């Protein structure tokens, strides 16, 4: 009896000490500091996987597993996204009914600019992703927007990513409180648990990259968007960033948000910013 209450008191004491130790850090984190966040984020992965070359993180599960990497390298000789890439190039260069093309909507004619997306639009006060910008371009030219989760959108972004391969991700956070708020909101979305499974994005992609979830190997969160869009063998087709978010949500038994909802735009902003400096590797191929 005595021993047990002593034990109870002891663990209570330990919990109090632990609380006292952690609480100052929580207070300090209230200021939004994207530069420090990105540094800490990258260091976490670099230290967790000291043998993975920094630029290799963008290759997702292949950076974590030698056997999968061999299979992928063989597959890359004849990648499954090739058809989408060709279709994307055709679509990109074919003029709209009004004679204009996608190139008219983007800086540098849309070539080699994937690393600058998403960006914070100071006029709109919101994050603009590449997928969103493409559909806005279509609508501005009198064309119906594409579905964010289907093949056409993925083909277009596949081509745009391909022309930007190897360029380091270069996301800017302008000096605007709304941009900082968007970054912070994306961060919150990334770490917030949701769905009946009580999973956050971080539960898989920070805590367990390289581990198996059923037959799959989890990709690290660092550089995970650099490979977008992806040909997913599981889907027998291409997937956009929107599709990836929506599917991740429903797998944790959370009702997904509508594609390009503010939260998704913000989380894309956060994840891309913390991957600054890592090369664009999309379009990617994943099992």
């Amino acid at each position: 009896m005595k021993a047990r209450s002593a034990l109870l008191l002891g663990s209570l004491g330990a919990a109090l000490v632990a609380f006292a130790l952690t609480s100052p850090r929580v207070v300090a984190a209230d200021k939004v500091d994207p530069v420090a966040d990105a540094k800490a984020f990258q260091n976490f992965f670099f230290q967790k996987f000291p043998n993975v070359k920094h630029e290799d993180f963008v290759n997702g599960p292949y950076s974590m597993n030698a056997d999968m990497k061999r299979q992928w390298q063989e597959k890359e000789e004849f990648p499954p996204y090739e058809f989408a890439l060709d279709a994307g190039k055709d679509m990109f260069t074919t003029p709209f009914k009004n004679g204009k093309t996608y190139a008219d909507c983007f800086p540098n004619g849309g070539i080699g600019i994937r690393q600058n997306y998403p960006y914070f639009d100071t006029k709109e006060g919101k994050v603009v992703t590449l997928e969103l910008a493409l559909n806005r371009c279509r609508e501005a030219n009198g064309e119906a927007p594409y579905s964010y989760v289907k093949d056409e959108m993925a083909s277009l972004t596949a081509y745009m990513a391909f022309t930007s391969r190897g360029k380091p991700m270069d996301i800017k956070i302008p000096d605007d409180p709304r941009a900082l708020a968007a970054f912070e909101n994306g961060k919150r979305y990334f770490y917030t648990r949701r769905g009946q499974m009580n999973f956050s994005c971080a539960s898989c992609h920070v805590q367990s990259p390289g581990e198996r979830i059923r037959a799959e190997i989890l990709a690290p969160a660092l550089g995970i968007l650099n490979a977008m869009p992806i040909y997913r063998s599981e889907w027998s087709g291409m997937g956009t960033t929107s599709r990836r978010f929506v599917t991740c949500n429903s797998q944790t038994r959370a009702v997904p948000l509508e594609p390009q909802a503010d939260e998704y735009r913000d989380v894309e902003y956060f994840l891309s910013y913390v991957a600054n400096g890592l090369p664009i590797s999309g379009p990617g191929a994943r099992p």
Partner: protein
Amino acid sequence: MKWSFVLAMLLAPMLALGLAPAARAANEADYKAAYAAADAASKEAAGLRHQWTVTVSALAAAKKAGDGGDFDRAVAAAREAEALAKASIFQATSEKEAWKAMEIR
């Protein structure tokens, strides 16, 4: 003294489980009340952007059973949906601060 307490602890849930449902079958009013409560909780969860897929399907199952006149099943499904929705609301509320524990810094 101690034993009687244990016995009571064991008996109480058995009584609750075994006797209460046998009292009477659920009727339409029970279903409507249970469904309204579940629907309200589910809407609150959706408003918090923390809806669960299982809540939506339990609610749909309740409606289907209710429309078919199977009120026992409808009430059970509605209560399940309400419990799930409440759990998701709890998740949304606690995660307002709890997410920071996961953060890399």
